[in-house]
């Protein structure tokens, strides 16, 4: 009898061990983050977006839920990352605490729709500013300048940059409808380009050898590299410039100016640096300078 119960005990213990071991692998939790003081005395012109948001006591911010270091939704249900920190900084200046932010998932393909249909108040989601998008929405910022890069398996020496892709006949994976997916078409033939809806599937395809490279903006790749446990590496040859902006309703110039002011102040008082260090800085320790802001329109 005793022997049997002991056997059960061992079984349960080892099962628990296996379970916890599995749980530890994929997590890249970014605890803490910036503690931005909430500006409760903020005053805004009546009728402006800022005044409306402050009065509503709630802001809906669109971000990605699957991008480590920028916007990643963990088990606690709140996304974490640099985009999220930027969102918190803007909210704080509106007099809203992090608890008053409603995070809305904004994957690449529905960002414009989410803004147009008033499902979010702003989108901070590794959102490259370009003219085509500006026809439908307005951008504040940029708050960060990324660049497109390639991620390959750690032992891959063949792929040294985008120019080497065609020569080695490599298959490349990216995300449907993203700017990098369009950009990489200059370097690979259409039949060698694989597109999925999320980057995690690209990582999987790279791991199993279905593709030889994954391409998108460098920092997103850094997050994937970080999560790969040494299986992947960055080629580290940026070949585009991707200014990340904050998407807002088209033509809302005062809101844009408010966000730009907030960014400038954050860069001045160290909040911007803290936001970076608490998120993407874990992989890229050097805080980038705040890029030159675009004029609001």
């Amino acid at each position, binding site marked *: 009898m005793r022997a049997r119960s002991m056997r059960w005990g061992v079984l349960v213990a080892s099962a628990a061990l296996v379970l916890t071991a599995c749980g530890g692998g994929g997590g890249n939790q970014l605890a803490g983050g910036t503690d931005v003081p909430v500006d409760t005395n903020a005053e805004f012109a009546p009728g402006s977006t800022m005044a409306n948001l402050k009065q509503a006591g709630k802001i809906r911010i669109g971000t990605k839920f699957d991008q480590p270091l920028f916007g990643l939704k963990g088990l606690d249900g709140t996304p974490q990352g640099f985009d999220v920190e930027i969102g918190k900084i803007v909210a704080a200046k509106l007099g809203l605490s992090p608890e008053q932010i409603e995070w809305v998932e904004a994957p*690449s*393909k*529905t*960002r*414009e*729709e989410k803004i147009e249909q008033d499902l979010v108040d702003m989108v901070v989601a590794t959102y490259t500013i*370009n003219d*085509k*998008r500006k*026809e*439908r929405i307005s951008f504040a910022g940029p708050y960060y300048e990324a660049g497109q890069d390639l991620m390959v398996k750690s032992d891959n020496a063949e792929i040294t940059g985008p120019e080497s892709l065609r020569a080695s006949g490599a298959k490349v*994976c990216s995300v*449907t*409808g*993203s*700017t990098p*997916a*369009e950009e990489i078409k200059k370097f690979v033939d*259409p039949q060698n*380009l*694989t*597109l*999925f*809806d999320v980057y995690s*599937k690209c990582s*999987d*395809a790279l791991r*199993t*050898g*279905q593709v030889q490279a994954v391409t998108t903006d460098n920092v997103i790749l850094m997050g994937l590299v970080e999560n790969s446990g040494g299986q992947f590496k960055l080629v580290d040859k940026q070949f585009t410039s991707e200014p990340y902006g904050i998407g807002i309703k088209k033509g809302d110039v005062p809101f844009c100016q408010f966000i730009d002011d907030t960014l400038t102040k954050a860069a001045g008082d160290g909040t911007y640096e803290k936001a970076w260090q608490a998120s993407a800085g874990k992989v890229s320790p050097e805080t980038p300078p705040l890029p030159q802001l675009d004029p609001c329109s």
Partner: protein
Amino acid sequence: MHVITDNLPLYLNGLLRTLQICLYAGVLAMVLGTVIAAFRVAPLPPLRATGTSWVTVFRNCPLTVVLFFMAFGLPELGLNGSYFWFGTIGLALYTSAFVCEAIRSGINAVPPGQAEAARAIGLGFGQTLGLVVLPQAVRTVVPPLGNVIIAMIKNSAIVGAFGVGGDLFAVGDTLTSARGEAVLPVLIGVVLGYLVITIPAGLLLGVLERKVAIAR
């Protein structure tokens, strides 16, 4: 609407890609489905069991799951291949279960006397099925087979999401997100593209039905 005319080459490429997927998957599904139907009415129990399990698995498993297994499960097992073929074969496997059931219903519609007569003049199982029963069976099931094929053409939109890309539905994706076009006109273009395939397919099946239909 200028979105559609401006991007006509892109739409045409997508249409071609979708047609390609449907053609390969359709032919494969028809062949497989017929073979499995033969299995299901075969006198050997192991064959019948194989046929029944095949249909049970593929008819009751969502297409997305079948495709997910093809695209992410097979490479995990060390089987690498092009996503185009993974997707096309996945679609064919799924559709074959429905083709099989349509054909089996046709086989059941053939009066037993036909098979008995074939047996009586000394034909074996293969000959009875291939020369006497199946030709009659297929003629009666043109409409349900047509439904299966049209459903397959529509299902091909899902294949595009599993790394195949470049199909008609994916074209809509590219236009709306990367190029920032408005969703509605883009989707109207996509719908028109599918109609260009499905409506003629339906008409063709109608003609075929009138040609081969047998009164019973």
